[in-house]
């Protein structure tokens, strides 16, 4: 299997599909990288579920303010045009489907658009869900950004999730290092392929694919 996209390239690929002027929540971890690839002229407004719209970039040096952090608890800056609100208002905004796009990491996504990203199901794991379940069902479109295969080579795009679910039939697109998929319909559509081939993907995945 040849090399596909690296993390930065994946983030850039996701950024390309975010419409101008969209309100977007980027989940903690890799999805945060998408912000670096958004065109400043595109007018994309970032939401952070701890209570801010038009969240800015990571703070550096003297900009760091303990009262101003993102959902990953990383200090950020306040651009002009920002707005603050409390947690109930923030999740009402999310749950009420006012965000255009949410980008999440995942352990598994099913062909039907189910997502598992909060719990490995391991008996000794300490479960933590945060805003993941609210995000999964809250945005008009939910994008997942993940490697297509786990370190042990097992696919993370699966017929049915085996890990505990975060949300049911809520993901619309899956951005991976090797391909971009549309999920949630009758078939999984391969929209884009990187450093591999459609046939190779078909052979390695247990979900029926269709060329996009």
């Amino acid at each position, binding site marked *: 299997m040849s090399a596909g996209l690296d993390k930065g390239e994946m983030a850039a690929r996701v950024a390309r599909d975010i*419409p*101008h*002027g*969209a*309100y977007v929540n980027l989940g903690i971890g890799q999805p945060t990288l998408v912000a670096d690839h958004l065109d400043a002229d595109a*007018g994309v*407004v970032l*939401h952070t579920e701890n209570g*801010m*719209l*038009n969240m800015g970039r990571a703070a550096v040096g003297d900009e760091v303010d303990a009262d101003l952090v993102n959902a990953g608890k990383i200090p950020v800056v*306040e651009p*002009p*045009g*920002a*707005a*603050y*609100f409390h947690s109930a208002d923030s999740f*009402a*905004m*999310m*749950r*009420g*489907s*006012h*965000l*255009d796009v949410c980008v999440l990491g995942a352990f598994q996504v099913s062909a039907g658009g189910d997502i598992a990203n909060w719990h490995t199901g391991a008996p000794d794991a300490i479960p933590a869900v945060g805003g993941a379940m609210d995000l999964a069902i*809250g945005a008009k479109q939910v994008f997942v950004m993940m490697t297509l295969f786990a370190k042990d080579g097992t696919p993370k795009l699966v017929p049915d999730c085996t890990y505990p679910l975060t949300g049911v039939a809520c993901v619309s697109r899956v951005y991976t290092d090797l391909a971009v998929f549309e999920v949630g319909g009758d078939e999984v559509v391969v929209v884009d392929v990187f450093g591999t081939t459609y046939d190779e993907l078909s052979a390695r995945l247990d979900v029926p694919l269709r060329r996009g």
Partner: protein
Amino acid sequence: MSVTICESAAEAVAGISDGSTVLVGGFGLAGMPVRLVDALIDQGATDLTVVSNNAGNGDTGLAALLAKGRVRKVICSFPRQSDSYVFDGLYRDGRIELELVPQGNLAERMRAAGAGIGAFFCPTGVGTPLAEGKETREIDGRTYVLEHPIKGDVALVGAHRADRMGNLVYRKTARNFGPVMATAATTTIVQVREVVEIGELDPETVVTPGIYVDRVVAV
């Protein structure tokens, strides 16, 4: 998606369809988006359901819209006022439908629509005619009635200032229903006294973030 700053109230209300549910802000005239309502009269949409705390005063604004026969149904808490003779006449003649909703339920049902809540158990109105036919449930020894969201196709809101991202601030008790209505409609149209540049509103004081606002016009 991004807010449109409109040049006129007519541009702001363009495209409202016949049969729409229109949320109209204001408590009496405080916060009432009078210019947007006037523009809606000119725009011509009919067969409307109007959701507003009151049902019009005198001969202007909402009362004028009613007088032109463009409203099929009013959902409100307090239609009867000293100068609500337009509504009174239509209602007595059976030419307009009324859904009377306690004021707090009106606000909370729109809040639920905006917040993605499917329904909620509310103590208001239990045992009264306004709860008749609705599901009730006892929770922790108190009886509640199940209330459902009120969604709008369009909200017409009066605010004080907007910035070019659509962030809004209101003024004094003119705030009232504006912030909840802005969240509860597919398209939110706002009349303000002034549109200011991005950065001129203090982010701590924004009441309605721009995500809820589609069109703004300064009048």
